[in-house]
């Protein structure tokens, strides 16, 4: 475990060499250290409380403390995994293993897996596409990761009840692109925060504190899309929630 953390830190130091200046790099480490230290302090405090007061605590409270300890350890594990992913992606260690994949099938698989794991949260995820098959050169591992991050963000952190995934072709910049949009009806994001959310540890200010995640999901998505020579951006929906769009160059597409 210690080796894993040390390797992650070494890789992260390598990654931060790419930051524009020393302040960005220090800020990243300060935030990373805060995000890791805060839950660890809670674990130390609560476990000491349990040890010192064990005989005076009723079983219900004991169970609730152990549940809190367990879920906090999982939050830290999740954060370390995300940091590791982000580090691999940003330090150019990633080699996209491009394969010609039917992206419709891949999206359907992600939706199915998501519905299995989300459990008792009532949220429907639907795919809206006029095509049955779109072959495109992508790395299926990272694109699945990207879609899962976007769906999870919408469900867990914005409280969405309906998510629609739409596919269409758009002209962006010089060429035609396949644009995939993940549209939710959740709590939304302030427009001024659209760009900053793609930086590590940034989260929407109107998201309920109890529902907040690692703050790394969207920065991971951005790095995945950059590795595929695409773009990613956020828009407001006309009614409620947001739409996260990502593009993949169409030169790689065959319908």
């Amino acid at each position: 475990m210690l080796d894993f953390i040390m390797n992650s830190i070494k890789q992260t130091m390598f990654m931060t060499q790419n930051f524009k200046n020393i302040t960005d790099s220090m800020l990243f480490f300060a935030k990373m250290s805060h995000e890791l230290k805060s839950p660890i302090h809670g674990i130390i405090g609560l476990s000491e409380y349990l040890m010192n007061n064990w005989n005076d605590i009723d079983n219900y409270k004991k169970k609730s403390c152990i549940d809190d300890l367990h879920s906090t350890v999982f939050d830290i594990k999740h954060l370390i995994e995300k940091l590791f992913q982000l580090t691999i992606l940003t330090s150019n260690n990633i080699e996209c293993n491009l394969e010609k994949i039917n992206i419709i099938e891949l999206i359907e698989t992600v939706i199915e897996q998501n519905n299995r794991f989300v459990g008792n949260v009532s949220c429907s995820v639907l795919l809206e596409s006029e095509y049955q098959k779109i072959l495109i050169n992508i790395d299926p591992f990272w694109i699945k990761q990207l879609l899962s991050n976007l769906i999870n963000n919408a469900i867990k952190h914005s409280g969405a009840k309906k998510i629609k995934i739409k596919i269409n072709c758009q002209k962006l910049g010089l060429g035609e692109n396949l644009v995939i949009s993940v549209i939710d009806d959740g709590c939304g994001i302030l427009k001024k925060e659209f760009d900053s959310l793609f930086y590590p540890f940034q989260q929407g200010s109107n998201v309920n504190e109890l529902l907040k995640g690692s703050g790394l999901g969207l920065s991971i998505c951005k790095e995945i899309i950059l590795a595929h020579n695409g773009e990613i951006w956020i828009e407001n929906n006309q009614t409620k929630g947001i739409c996260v769009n990502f593009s993949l160059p169409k030169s790689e597409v065959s319908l």
Partner: protein
Amino acid sequence: MKNENIQQKNMILFVDDEKICHSLIDLIIPNFTKYKVINAYNGEDAVALGKRYANNLCLVLSDIMLPDFNGYVIYNIFKKNEKTNKIPFIFQSGIISQELELRKNLIDEAVEIIYKPYKQQELLSIISKVLDNPI
């Protein structure tokens, strides 16, 4: 009826963005003191709860690094409002070097700081000291 009109200063506002820290404080304070806890997970909620419970709050125990604004911003907002300006603060921090920055940013420098992770007894002693009241 008469009792309802008496506004008891028996609430401690706890401000921290970490859920497990709230679980710990929710156990220690009600079990070892006569005070109740109200919980805020960010600065904005802390300020809103401070206004709502101004007459009942006897203490604010706040983290320094919060998702929206720093603990000293909450402190300075409380100090500028006549309903909340007498409520004492204890800051908690996981970083010792934050103390200098904190003191530079406060109107009144005489505040207590407790460093995380702290022992139950350390917390109870500092609360007792600030409230000038044996717990």
